[in-house]
């Protein structure tokens, strides 16, 4: 991939924040929607979470991000239990971008205003972010009038505005065409290279191959396999993974 400009302020070269889940469980009617004994994301990432529909991928992401409190189990970030301080260093991008009914720039400023930054610093940062997402000419446009790809790019920029150490993405490209998907994959890889841990849910095996350093396969709420992408795709260790990769796995 060609070299791309990087954002100045982001902590380049910083070691990736580790996140670890133990005994995570969300029950439902006697069964479990989520039942993750142990998942540790400590490598450089990006981590791809793969699995069929209804496997609990989004649920796992929401637990790691603290949007849903599990019935049991703990999430730790760099050894610390997930609390407000940890959550402030996380950000999440949703499948369908939720943009404020304001201008493109105001969507970014909404996040920046919550940080101790002066007016000029915020303005400079907005310009920097817009350039990073290819939205430089659209600062004053209504955010809700952006195309699908632009809207998701803005959602990612807004998530990055908080300079998160961990960025969760829940199928951010599932509704987009290949060109828009590629633009977003580039943004994600650039963020990863700047030191942000990427944890991304996808059901697109090709995307997991393109982006993933390590891959976790989720099935019926359980992590059936977690390993380096190269190894996992070349030699899956479990039957469930083999069937999923062959496209034969349904819930």
């Amino acid at each position: 991939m060609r070299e791309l400009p990087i954002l100045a302020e982001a902590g380049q070269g910083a070691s990736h924040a580790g996140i670890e889940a133990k005994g995570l469980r969300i029950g439902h009617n006697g069964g479990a929607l989520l039942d993750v004994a142990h998942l540790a994301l400590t490598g450089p990432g990006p981590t791809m979470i793969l699995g069929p529909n209804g496997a609990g991928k989004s649920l796992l992401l929401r637990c790691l991000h603290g949007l849903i409190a599990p019935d049991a189990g703990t999430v730790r970030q760099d050894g610390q239990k997930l609390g407000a301080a940890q959550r402030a260093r996380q950000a999440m991008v949703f499948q369908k971008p939720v943009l404020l009914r304001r201008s493109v720039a105001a969507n970014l400023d909404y996040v920046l205003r919550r940080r101790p930054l002066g007016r000029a610093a915020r303005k400079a940062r907005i310009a920097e972010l817009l350039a990073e997402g290819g939205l430089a000419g659209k600062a004053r446009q209504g955010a809700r009038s952006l195309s699908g790809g632009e809207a998701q790019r803005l959602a990612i920029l807004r998530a990055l505005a908080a300079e998160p150490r961990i960025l969760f993405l829940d199928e951010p490209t599932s509704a987009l065409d290949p060109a828009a998907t590629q633009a977003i994959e580039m943004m994600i890889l650039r963020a990863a290279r700047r030191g942000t841990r990427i944890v991304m849910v996808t059901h697109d095996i090709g995307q997991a191959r393109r982006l993933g350093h390590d891959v976790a396969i989720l099935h019926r709420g359980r992590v059936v396999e977690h390993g380096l992408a190269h190894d996992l795709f070349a030699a899956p260790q479990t039957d469930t993974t083999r069937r999923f990769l062959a496209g034969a796995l349904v819930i």
Partner: protein
Amino acid sequence: MSLILGGDSELWAIVLLSLHVSLMAVVIAAAIGMPLGAALAVGRFPGRRALIVLLNALMGLPPVVVGLMVYLMLSRSGPLGVLELLYTPGAMIIAQVVLVTPIIAALTRQSVETLDAEYSEQLRSLGVSRLASVPTLLWDGRVALLTALLAGFGRAIAEVGAVIMVGGNINHVTRVMTTTIALETSKGNLAMALALGAILIGIAVTVTAAVSLLAARGERTGLRHA
């Protein structure tokens, strides 16, 4: 027609009083109704559902009943009789506030709740607390809220039953457009009634047009991906 164009001073005094009373009522009703509506939308407390049903029911409050209640409160022997507000513009403003507040509160509640359903997960992800999300929801629902205000104003300016009971339709003091139309029609002075009727319709049409223009504008710029 000549009454309107000729700048009949009595007629324009009536129009101005109408606008003064109804605008004041809408401002006060908004100050009460918007926070109330937002609290009902975002808060979670026992009895919330019942309150919402009650609020929606109050939107259809009969003006004559409101007039009667305000009359009883403000009359000499009533609990607020010492204020000596009966048969003043103040009494009319109070009556219209009672009528308009439920409309503004209910519409605010609806708009904030719809927006909250869309925003809440994203705002929580950004670390915005439930309480801190209220200004965001109000600002992003601004088109709907303006529509609520205009709907409230439309209700206030067109209302006759309550203001005639608590205002008394006293010449130069509490005579507004609607009460004058009722009086002049019964007296057979149709020219005055028609002139005021035309102005009232003009105001109503302007307000309605403003509402639909705003809604259409919101549709184009804000809500395309809603």
